[in-house]
């Protein structure tokens, strides 16, 4: 493909080609325009700053930093912003607030239970404004906003931990976004860049005896967390912060490696926020590989 990029190619790294808004990429007759481009005067022109990618005849430009672009089946972490009739509005770092329908959540009393009028009246007992939850993208509405669902035992309200926000592009797609680190910390890597770091809960506890523990799912009470776990949680969040500010993509292996490096160095939780230690961490994990 003859993508012409005049001048300063010095910043090119790893063969990826960079472009800026308003730069012509190629002829519109030979190629199709994808995301991040538009066509004017028979030319495909970039509309965002980022890397040019090509799949057969489709040319797209992927912006480095952007809001989360959802896909069906993605796992996201979100925060309730509003309670509306039969639905919650959820901030999920997307272009618009996502929607969680009352009909897309599991209610206490069994998975198959019908939603009653009384459930509509007590929606705040399930999720309230400010609550954090983990959910899956179910579908899209006509205007592009997404609909979420929590109809799985793994989804639902989040407790026992803290939230870290990173640019969505840094969260790699993994086999599983529920990660358990050996230090007794559970991680939920939301593809929208919201990451939940919490105390490890045993698989059997989560599912409960009958497969569904109604009280626990919507509980607002944190479990008892010991000091060691608390420190571990802080460690992991600071690792994520340090990596994110240096724009390192996050995956289970990298986080594990980073945690091991930190333990090896024996550094304190707050040390990680220092510039030099953070740089050393990045240098450390890139070297290990």
């Amino acid at each position, binding site marked *: 493909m003859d993508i012409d990029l005049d001048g300063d190619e010095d910043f090119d790294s790893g063969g990826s080609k960079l472009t*800026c808004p308003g730069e*012509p990429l190629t002829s519109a007759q030979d190629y199709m325009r994808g995301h991040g481009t538009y066509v004017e005067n028979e030319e495909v022109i970039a509309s965002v700053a980022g890397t040019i990618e090509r799949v057969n005849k489709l040319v797209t430009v992927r912006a480095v930093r952007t809001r989360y672009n959802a896909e069906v089946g993605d796992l996201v972490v979100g925060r309730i912003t509003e309670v509306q009739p039969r639905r919650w509005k959820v901030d999920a770092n997307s272009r618009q607030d996502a929607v969680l329908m009352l009909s897309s959540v599991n209610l206490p009393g069994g998975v198959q239970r019908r939603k009653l009028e009384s459930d509509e009246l007590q929606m705040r007992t399930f999720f309230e404004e400010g609550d954090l939850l983990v959910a899956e993208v179910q579908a899209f509405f006509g205007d592009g906003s997404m609909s979420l669902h929590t109809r799985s035992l793994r989804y639902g309200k989040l407790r026992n931990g803290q939230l870290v926000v990173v640019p969505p592009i840094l969260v790699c797609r993994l086999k599983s976004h529920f990660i358990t680190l050996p230090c007794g910390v559970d991680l939920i890597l939301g593809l929208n860049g919201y990451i939940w770091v919490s105390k490890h809960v045993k698989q059997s506890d989560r599912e409960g005896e009958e497969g569904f523990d109604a009280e626990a799912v919507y509980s607002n009470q944190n479990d008892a967390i010991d000091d060691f776990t608390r420190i571990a949680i802080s460690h992991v969040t600071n690792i994520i912060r340090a990596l994110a500010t240096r724009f390192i993509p996050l995956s289970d292996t990298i986080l594990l490696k980073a945690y091991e490096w930190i333990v090896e160095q024996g550094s304190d939780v707050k040390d990680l926020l220092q510039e030099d230690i953070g740089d050393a961490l990045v240098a450390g994990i890139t070297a290990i590989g």
Partner: protein
Amino acid sequence: MSSRIEILNEGGFRSDGRRQYELRDITIDMSQQGTADGSAIITHGLTQVLVSVFGPREAKMRSQTLYDRANINVEVSIASFSTGERRKRSRGDKRILEMAATIKSTFEPVVQTNLYPRSQIDIFVQVLQQDGGLLQACINATMLALASAGISLLDFVSAVTGGVHSTSPMLDLTALEENDIPHVTVAVMPRTGKVTLITMETRLHVDRFEEIFKLACEAGKVIHGEMRAAIRLRTGMLISAMQSVSQNAGEKEDEQMYEY
């Protein structure tokens, strides 16, 4: 108006030692500021402006949502320490409101708002230092911040100020020069060479205007080059940071990166 300071001396130098067509130093910092989706600080000589862009995100006020495109909201605030004489400007100041309206209408046709229906793009402009060419700096910084937020734009916009001292045109005026001579701010789209914004507030003969206007259009392209290089540098840096780990950390991540 006559000033004590010579705007352009016989040797062809201006009060700060520049030539007629010389631009001031431009520094661009595109590092992340707080939780903003995109941000940029641009410095033209002693004028410094910080712009943070939030969004596209859910509109704060439901009445502001447009069903077919994004709503752009611009707020300008001028730091009271930005001028030599400390002065507090209220938010309702007409000059500030006008500047916000100007920035908004400059970027409304540039941002592909139809891609973001029912959302809102907030642009917060904070003037940190002012020494002439304020609107120019605001527009350039907004452009950079929008680009770093990954918002779809039809074209680049770069703005520059020009002035005319008796018959000699000059570029990129300082506050001192702005007070004394007629000045024009022009914003151009370098790819098409079209002009989106022109403002002029002082008396100037039509023929002189034509001269400075054409000159400013050319200068806009130079500024575009600087801004483009800064965006490329920033994007390149982020991308190489992302690749540094994935390439070293074994094949597994590599695969995932490509998939993404």
